[in-house]
């Protein structure tokens, strides 16, 4: 179905160039009317396109229904013009785990676009669409946004319906937006947010007009700088870079302070445990969610797809073994182990308890501050194949995005400059539960002071912005 040699952000056909000036005008008015939108291929669509999760398991899967986020953008007048590449079942931080294609970073084709929403981030960065939808479980919208120099917004868990998002870790998965500006993120979030009877974890809470939050005013806003992120950055940054990511944090701090924000030192002492918690909770939930792929009801079937004959149990074993890629198998086994008799208390329960402590750290900090500022990632985009043989190194790419996911908090990554190799740097603003308006307001005010978001990669299409 897909040429594995492709380097496109898309699985299947890339969208045809659209009337981008009209789309820009609509977005500037806060409308999605006739705006081309790309959807991460973990969102099911009933438009005749395949919904694959970038897995051989679902290579030929066609959904009978649309995911709620897709339905909502369609109802708002948008056109879904393509499905974007991702790490298989959203498991990865580089989009290299896709079983169906390769996507490169538009700023440097030798580097990864990040992941797992790497296709959506690259599509917006190369300006083939003004808006893409992604999902973020531990950073999968924010981290690729940082690597590709675009805006990536993950709302509060429960803000957006998960119905029709092929499930990885259900207590963490949340849909988000990839756009070139914060204002566009506010527009799209306003469309996709809200309760959905088809997702019992979506929360019935009024959706504000997010665009009205973009006042440009941050006077008196209290922003926390957690010292633990600086310590972790010192450990996990690239050896040969010159504190470029930290310098970007400091420059952002200055920009926002000049605009009247107040900075406060805060401490989130359990930050360093967040990746460990995440890599127990997420695989545990994923191993349960992915148990549904048994070769019987849908997906890769050893019986149909290879003409093989054997027992029912062999159908399960062989269909799963052939259908899942290596990272998916790794996480299923890690989760199965963490949930197995005798290990549940030591691993899964322990992780859920430390998750409580990570969340309490944020609750305490948010008594003093309105927002928390951190780098989105410890490094800029890494090279293709650099981390593929070292799963732990790949997992640590999520070190700054995972804590907000565990606590279910809204967070945004905004472009905040470039390193000396001309690769984008992203900064993260984390808000209180349901604090999307404050997150967007500060991110927008920062964006007004710079033109980082308007810089286009060498591979950009000839479209406005």
């Amino acid at each position, binding site marked *: 179905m897909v040429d594995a040699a492709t380097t496109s952000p898309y699985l299947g056909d890339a969208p045809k160039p659209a009337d981008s000036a009209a789309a820009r005008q609509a977005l500037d008015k806060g409308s999605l009317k006739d705006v081309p939108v790309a959807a991460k291929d973990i969102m099911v669509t009933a438009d005749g396109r395949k919904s694959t999760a970038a897995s051989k398991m679902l290579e030929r899967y066609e959904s009978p229904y649309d995911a709620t986020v897709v339905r909502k953008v369609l109802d708002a007048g948008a056109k879904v013009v393509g499905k974007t590449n991702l790490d298989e079942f959203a498991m990865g931080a580089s989009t290299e785990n896709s079983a169906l294609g390769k996507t490169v970073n538009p700023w440097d084709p030798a580097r990864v676009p990040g992941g797992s929403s790497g296709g959506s981030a690259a599509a917006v960065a190369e300006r083939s669409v003004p808006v893409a939808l992604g999902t973020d479980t531990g950073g999968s919208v924010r981290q690729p946004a940082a690597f590709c120099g675009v805006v990536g917004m993950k709302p509060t868990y429960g803000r957006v319906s998960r119905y029709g998002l092929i499930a990885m870790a259900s207590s963490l998965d949340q849909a988000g937006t990839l756009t070139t500006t914060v204002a566009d993120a506010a527009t799209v979030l306003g469309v996709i947010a809200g309760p959905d009877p088809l997702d019992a974890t979506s929360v019935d809470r009024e959706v504000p007009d997010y665009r009205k939050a973009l006042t440009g005013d941050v006077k008196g806003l209290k922003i926390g700088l957690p010292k633990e992120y600086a310590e972790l950055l010192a450990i996990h940054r690239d050896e040969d870079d010159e504190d470029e990511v930290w310098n970007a944090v400091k420059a952002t701090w200055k920009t926002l302070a000049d605009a009247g924000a107040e900075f406060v030192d805060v401490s989130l002492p359990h930050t360093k*445990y967040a990746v460990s918690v995440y890599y127990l909770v997420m695989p545990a939930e994923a191993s349960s969610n992915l148990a549904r792929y048994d070769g019987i009801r849908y997906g890769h079937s050893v019986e149909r797809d290879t003409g093989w004959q054997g*027992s029912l149990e062999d159908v399960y074993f062989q269909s799963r073994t052939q259908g899942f890629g290596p990272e998916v198998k790794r996480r299923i*086994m890690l989760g199965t182990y963490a949930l197995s008799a005798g290990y549940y208390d030591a691993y899964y329960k*322990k*992780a859920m*308890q430390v998750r409580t*402590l990570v969340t309490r750290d944020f609750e305490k900090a948010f008594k003093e501050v309105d927002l928390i500022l951190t780098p989105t990632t410890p490094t800029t985009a890494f090279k293709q194949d650099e981390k593929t043989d070292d799963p732990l190194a790949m997992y640590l790419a999520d070190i700054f995005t995972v804590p907000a996911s565990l606590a279910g908090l809204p967070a945004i990554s905004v472009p905040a400059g470039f390193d000396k190799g001309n690769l984008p740097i992203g900064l993260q603003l984390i808000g209180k539960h349901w604090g999307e308006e404050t997150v967007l307001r500060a991110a927008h005010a920062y964006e007004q002071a710079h033109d980082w978001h308007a810089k286009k990669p060498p591979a950009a299409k000839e479209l406005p912005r």
Partner: protein
Amino acid sequence: MEKVARLARLALSDEETVKYQDQLSSILHYIGQLDEVDTKNVPPTAQVTGAANVLADDEIKNERQGELPVDVPVHDGTNIRVRGVFDG
């Protein structure tokens, strides 16, 4: 490793068993840092919204109820065909 793979319904080659064992050991070694955290009397977090007992009316709203999805691997047009549980 063989036991975990079997529980997960995955068939691994000998080579894969060794590779995954090494990788999972290194991940679990890192995760072992959680042992230093005191979690006595800390309740576990399984979900973050606090929503409880979200119920819906037991009504079928899907007009396509009864149709086979297009991707069913083995079927007779109306029903999904499954091999016998007790003999192949």
